[in-house]
């Protein structure tokens, strides 16, 4: 293979990669333009191999970093509100495929999820939610409301969410946002 041929192949591969990236970005943008607040429904075309799936709206860091953008993603369908809430939060905590940027500190996992009275959900996160946080109030808002909005937007039965860390109530995740009470959906932080 001559040097020119190798260069041509590399160039073609690069062009294909750029094409794929542009397509993914345009899909992401189109989807964020949809109105938020989609309710989780069972998907008719559930994949056969991994059981039924639902489409849930999950939230990621917007391109400018100041808002959350909602993306519809598939999560496993399970029976029961608490179990479904667990699936949604687990999907929200999982690192997303590029170019999406997660608002959750790396390594954060779901320890437990409980449903309380009056539509409150209690989400118990692992300690990484605090110790691996960037420490900015901007990111803290995004972390908190990515989870709060993921539950309240997809499950109408859940109207407020309180975050716990390592099984305990906490004042804040990184020193700013008050977590002592359940928080309600925040539509203002979602990119229009």
């Amino acid at each position: 293979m001559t040097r020119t041929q190798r260069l041509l192949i590399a160039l073609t591969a690069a062009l294909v990669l750029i094409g794929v990236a542009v397509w993914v970005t345009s899909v992401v943008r189109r989807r964020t333009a949809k109105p938020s607040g989609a309710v989780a429904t069972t998907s008719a075309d559930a994949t056969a191999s991994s059981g039924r799936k639902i489409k849930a709206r999950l939230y990621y860091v917007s391109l400018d970093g100041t808002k959350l953008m909602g993306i519809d993603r598939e999560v496993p369908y399970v029976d029961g509100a608490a179990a479904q809430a667990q699936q949604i939060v687990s999907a929200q905590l999982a690192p997303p495929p590029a170019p999406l940027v997660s608002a959750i500190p790396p390594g954060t996992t779901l320890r437990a999820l409980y449903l309380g009275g009056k539509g409150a959900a209690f989400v118990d996160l692992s300690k990484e939610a605090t110790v691996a946080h960037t420490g900015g109030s901007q990111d803290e808002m995004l972390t908190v409301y990515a989870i709060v909005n993921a539950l309240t937007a997809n499950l109408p039965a859940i109207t407020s969410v309180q975050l716990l860390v390592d099984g305990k109530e906490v004042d804040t995740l990184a020193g700013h946002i008050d977590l002592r009470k359940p928080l309600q959906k925040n539509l203002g932080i979602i990119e229009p």
Partner: protein
Amino acid sequence: MRAVLQRTALAFSVLALAVLSSALLLSQQTPLTVLTKDNANAVTRRTLQTTAIGDQEFVALDDLASMFQLTVREDALGALSVTSKGKTLLLTPDQPLASIAGRVVSLPAPPVRQGRRWLVPVDFIGRALSLVSDTRIALRRPSHLVIVGDLRVPRVQVRYDTSGATTGRLTIDATPRADSTVSQFGDQLAVRFDADAIDVSYSNSATAPLAAAAAQGLLQAVRVADAVTLTFTVGPRFGGVRLTTQPSDTSMRQTIDITNASAPQTTEASPQAPTPAPPPPDLTAIGATPVGVRTIAIDPGHGGDDEGAKGAQGTKEKELTLAIAHRLKTAIEARLGVRVLLTRDDDRSVMVDDRTAVANNGKADLFISLHANASWRPTLAGATVFTARFTTQDDEAAHAIASELLPAVNGAPRGIDFIPWDLAQIQHVARSEALARTIAEHLQGKVPLTTNPVDSAPMRVLEPANMPAVLIELGYLTNAEQEKLLTGSDFQNTFVQALVDAVMRFRDEASR
């Protein structure tokens, strides 16, 4: 019968009067002032009564016991043991001595029994008590101060000399060295020291230290306005001041040359602006009366184990906020002459509630929390001024218990307003927003701002603040350019300058 009753009543009245006057005579002794620092690092003052017997001043051992957590026991032979945290000190009646672990300390007089109480000479505090306590206890007899712990309480010596027929000079020496700032409001000239308290004495005369200045019509009176401020009331011929500072090895000398107004001033005339000498204090606020803003609490975000946000070059939010808080404190004190409380003065962890407590307990009129931001998008930049955001549920909760009817002294119910402490900010939201807008306007064009520079969020540290309160995010440490900018002197000076201007305008607008 009636006459007998009247005579008895009269006899009782005379007796009561005699007891009362003897009690008053006893309490006429100057009490000791005990200075300590509480958990929130604020200096507290407590009074310790003294009693004069002969030419000696005494304090009651049980007063000392309750103040310093001592256990006092008296054995069958009349010996007294004073125990603190495992260390015991022995006192023997009729002997002017105290002994601790074989060491003997002399006292100017032996302990004296008065009724059921034991009295010990005042010097017992400095000579003996300090040996059993695990914190430093120092007695300053001339100023009747007892200093507990590591407090900075410089001795401040004030002297006035005439420097001509119509002008004069105040010389103020602070030992050990303590910086001071001079500012003026209306007819008050304030000298505020960077210390926990001051121990003031007057060289000219203890009773009339400013007699010469008063005769010249330059200064009328001096008092210690708060723990660290000396306030002089200026006279009708006061023209202005020229300041010089001169440090020596052990003390700091502040010289204030006082000029005479060329013509007698009317009460409406504002004093002339002084000509500052190095270091140049900015006295642009002269003449302004600080209506509504006398104390400002500044909260350097994070600290200790909680480092806050971090920049790629290693900048820590906790260090940046502390550095800017120190600059801000100096600038506000110099330009506005108001008291500044810091929620932390060094690299230490402070609980969120303790931060707001410093402001609430210190009766601050404004609360400003300083932070630096971080983002997962490294291009994000700019400052934002936040106010607290409350939900409708918070509003309902606050109003549900905002007014309760309580029985008053005369039995009639009385309406009392209650706001839960962690929702205290709810009644100040409108003024906090006005302050945030004023700050953002003053920052505009001088430092980079985000696209939404005035915002609200459920900021934990602002919610219990019982005064207008804002949280300022200075910029993003996760942005390489911003990290470099924020740590530079240019940015910090510009930011501090703009913030002082904003506070000044907020204060002036509030006083209209």
